[in-house]
């Protein structure tokens, strides 16, 4: 196990098409990513943002209509449809994390039997920073929720374990 790299593999009863759509369509990410939409034009070099569009901010305080809360900001690094998706990752909402260097997310999709193997590598972190601790708790929640969504069409109702402080960060979209 490494402090500067996180790997996670899951197998999902779905097709590469449906999984790719779930990973890149903001309307779908919202369903399993705690209400956050992943928005991008998905061309290499264009921005990627994890956002919540709401008439209220994260504290529930009413804001200007059309306000967008940006949780994570990044750039598309690779886009190989149905196979490989990569973007940089820079957390905006937590001061300490915003000061860390952007990290890198890489998804790879591989058909295996009647399933798709989804592998995630998240690396390039400031070692022992807050971001890596937060994502280590967060990704299994999000990817488990993605699997439930694709296999059951429902969402997982998860509250972060109370004894695990870093897991709270996933609620901010990490």
């Amino acid at each position, binding site marked *: *196990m490494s402090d500067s790299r996180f*790997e*996670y*593999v*899951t*197998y*999902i*009863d779905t097709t590469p098409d449906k999984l790719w759509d779930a990973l890149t369509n903001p309307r779908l990410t919202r369903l399993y990513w705690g209400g956050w939409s992943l928005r991008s034009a998905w061309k290499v070099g264009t921005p990627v943002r994890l956002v919540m569009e709401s008439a209220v901010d994260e504290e529930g305080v009413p804001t200007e209509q059309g306000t967008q809360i940006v949780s994570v900001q990044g750039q598309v690094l690779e886009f190989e449809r149905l196979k490989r998706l990569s973007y940089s990752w820079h957390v905006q909402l937590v001061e300490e994390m915003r000061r860390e260097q952007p990290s890198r997310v890489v998804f790879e999709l591989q058909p*295996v*039997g*009647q*399933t798709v193997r989804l592998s995630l590598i998240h690396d390039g972190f400031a070692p022992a920073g807050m971001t890596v601790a937060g994502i280590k708790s967060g990704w*299994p*929640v999000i990817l*488990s*929720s993605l*699997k*439930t969504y694709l*296999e*059951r069409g*429902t969402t*997982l*109702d*998860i*509250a*972060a*374990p109370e004894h695990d402080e870093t897991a709270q960060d996933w609620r901010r979209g990490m």
Partner: protein
Amino acid sequence: MADPETPDFEYAIYIAAAPETVWTALTVGAFSRQYFFGRSVESRWTVGAPFVLRMADGRVDSEGVVLEADAPHRLTVSWRVVWLDEFKDLPEGRVSYLIDPVGDAVRVMVRTYQPQPADPRLLEGNRNGWPLILSSLKSLLETGKPLRVSVPEPPAA
């Protein structure tokens, strides 16, 4: 030297099921056979009781002893892979399952511990095997069907 209490592999998965249901799926052979490469788990599940992971043809895949059995939240067994000659003489390791409720779901955390220095083939076997085993367990509990992946043997380490 690495801290013997630091797992060499760790994997968390969240499942829409009750802790007791997950515990049953982990400890009853008729369930494990469906998601654990066709292997049946066998044990009385009390501390000190033997534990066997048996292949469909009756051969023993792995064996050990129950170290902790705190239903439905914590299960730890010692674990020695015996079905491949090159693994038989390796020191035994340990596998822990932690099952904690989170909202309407549970988090299942698997941690493996190998004596250091860990054999790279066992590490590789863990990394390749557990995500598939636990993904299939999740599918079984959430959809009623395990994953349809024909892997006749566990991924060779």
